[in-house]
């Protein structure tokens, strides 16, 4: 009998039970069906082991012959595929690592760099670029379109977010808290209660969408996960501030709850992102700047400063994401307009901000309840509302709404801020 071996491996005395089958399997992986693998061995068990294994694996056993005092076993590779995939795997490209950093923006290599117009439901949890076996189950993600889910700058914002994480237990100067005037403390506690409930919506809304966006758009999913993490920290520090100085958590109003629930109930990712991040979190930037400016002590000041930096990132991500979507979907602008008006009519019963929060804003800016300083508090709050309105208009214009429409839409935004 003569053989025409494509490849030969020297298995020495290795037995089938101790890893030889792995060696053979990997060697056969490199062959084409019909090609022959020779295994040269000193182990007498193989002529019993390999025929049985070959039969089970649908390879053809060609037999054993003596060779230079040893044994030569031959297996012809069968035609069944071990894994049902239809393409070659990527191999041999190195990532660009600069100054020891592997930036997420630089991971677009090989198949991982191919962003599809529509993600494949059966790609499931496989990382983009992996070869997915045919027959994998369809996952029920409902955000599958590039137009909805992809953002060119998500990787950059993700990098910023991971670099900017901070520790709510340690990075706030908690020990600097001293007893405050009771009315001022009460106002701060009410504001912290309000901020925390709003941040719950800012946590739950992206968390809900993470579970619905196809992992093909990994950068978006990863960024949203940092947003969830940010909001968790914000909830933590707002609640801690309410509890830290002898006060406590204050009122949550039905109107605030109704406003926040309407965000969670949104069933369209872009619209949810627009209402939450562009309008809601955008408005919050001015609120946090106001609290930072008028805070009577360093703890509240630092909390407002740090949370505002995080929120700024969320707003910019959403603006960028929506600008991208608007470029490729001519009907989107009308849909966003509709989303604001729908929400306004849904919330038509919400006539204003929780009055306890409104009062607290005045008391904070006035530094207490003294009649002499209240007028300056009222003025500051009026100024805040104007600034919020102007900045909302500016953001709406920046994503392409005409001036007049932007102004109308800003006025329709919930008085609850978020």
């Amino acid at each position, binding site marked *: 009998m003569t053989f025409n071996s494509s490849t030969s491996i020297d298995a020495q005395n290795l037995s089938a*039970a*101790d890893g030889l089958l792995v060696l053979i399997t990997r060697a056969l992986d490199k062959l084409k069906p019909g090609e022959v693998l020779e295994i040269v061995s000193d182990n007498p068990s193989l002529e019993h082991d390999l*025929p*049985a294994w070959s039969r*089970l694996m649908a390879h053809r056993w060609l037999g054993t012959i003596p060779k230079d005092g040893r044994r030569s076993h031959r297996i012809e590779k069968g035609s069944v*595929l071990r894994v*049902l995939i239809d393409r070659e795997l990527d191999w041999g490209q190195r990532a660009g690592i600069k100054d020891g950093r592997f930036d997420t923006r630089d991971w677009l290599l090989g198949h991982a760099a191919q962003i599809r117009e529509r993600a494949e439901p059966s790609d499931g949890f496989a990382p983009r670029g992996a070869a997915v076996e045919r027959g994998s189950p369809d996952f029920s993600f409902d955000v599958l379109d590039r137009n909805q889910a992809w953002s060119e700058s998500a990787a950059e914002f993700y990098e910023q977010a991971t670099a900017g994480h901070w520790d709510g237990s340690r990075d706030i100067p908690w020990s600097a808290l001293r007893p405050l005037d009771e009315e001022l403390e009460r106002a701060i506690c009410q504001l912290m209660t309000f901020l925390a409930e709003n941040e719950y919506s800012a946590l739950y809304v992206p968390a809900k969408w993470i579970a619905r966006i196809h992992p093909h758009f990994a950068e978006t999913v990863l960024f949203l996960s940092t947003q969830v993490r940010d909001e968790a920290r914000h909830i933590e520090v707002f609640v801690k501030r309410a509890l830290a100085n002898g006060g406590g958590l204050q009122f949550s109003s039905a109107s605030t709850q109704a406003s926040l629930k309407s965000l969670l109930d949104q069933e369209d990712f872009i619209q949810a992102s627009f209402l939450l991040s562009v309008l809601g979190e955008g408005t919050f930037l001015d609120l946090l700047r106001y609290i930072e400016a008028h805070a009577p002590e360093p703890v509240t000041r630092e909390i407002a400063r740090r949370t505002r930096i995080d929120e700024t990132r969320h707003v910019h991500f959403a603006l960028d994401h929506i600008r991208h979507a608007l470029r490729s979907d001519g009907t989107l602008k009308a849909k966003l307009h509709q989303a604001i008006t729908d929400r306004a009519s849904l919330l038509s019963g919400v006539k204003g901000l929780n009055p306890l929060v409104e009062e607290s804003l005045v008391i904070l800016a006035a530094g207490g309840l003294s009649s002499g300083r209240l007028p300056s508090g009222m003025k500051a709050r009026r100024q805040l509302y104007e600034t919020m309105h102007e900045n909302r208009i500016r953001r709406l214009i920046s994503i392409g709404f005409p001036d007049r429409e932007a102004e109308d839409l800003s006025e329709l935004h919930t008085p609850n801020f978020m």
Partner: protein
Amino acid sequence: MPDVIKVGVVAYDPKVVTIWEGIKDYFTANRIAMDFVLFSNYDAQVDALLDGWIDIAWNTNLAYVKVHRRTDGRCGVLAMRDTDVGFTSKIIAGAETGIESIRDLKGKRFALGSRDSGQAAILPAYFLKQNGIDPAKDLTTIRFDLDVGKHGDTGTSEVEVLNAVTTGEAHAGAIGDQYWARALAENVVHSSKVRPIWTSPGYCHCNFTVRAKEDEQRFTRWTDVLLAMDYNKPADRKIMDMEGLKRWIRPQMDGYRALFEAVDDLQFFN
């Protein structure tokens, strides 16, 4: 063909239901009405085939031989798995026993599987006799009669044989090569304690048996559709992996000769 073709299957494991629901779906998709009937043992399945309760029996080699005997050779066969051809039995021995060949087995403790297992009892005993060792006289046999009636399908007795040889309870023992190859691949063989010393000639294992030769023609379409099952199609692969094959093939009847001789020699059906 009958309105609904009834295939008998022995339920040796809960997965049998999953496998056969899958096969039934496959036939339905190919516009053949087929159903399966579960039996707890092969004797009952053979009776049902001969009585006309079922049309086709998914039989072990031993069940096939029984049908063959009871029909005076008039039964037919439709198909089998690729893995049913070239099946062998192995004799494994404790590494420290000094047993190198069948001759060395004389006077030793020898483990066999269930008494109705073709691969782990009937054929090994026959092959040993052919090679000069009469199990009844020359060996102290240790039998693991587990799941009798299921013809060794559950593999539990082979696990016990491997275990007995590994621990030294038996000096040597017999198992089927399918279990041996799986045990090797699944890393449950201690190569320092047990090794194969002999492999039997190849023989055939399961097949789809019908009552009469003419039935092979009656069920041509069923057989053709079965043979078209494709391991490179995900839905088919799921079923074939569970049933332990990569391809359905036409029957190769030469591979049953040894078992006919063995059951005669051992007077198994008497």
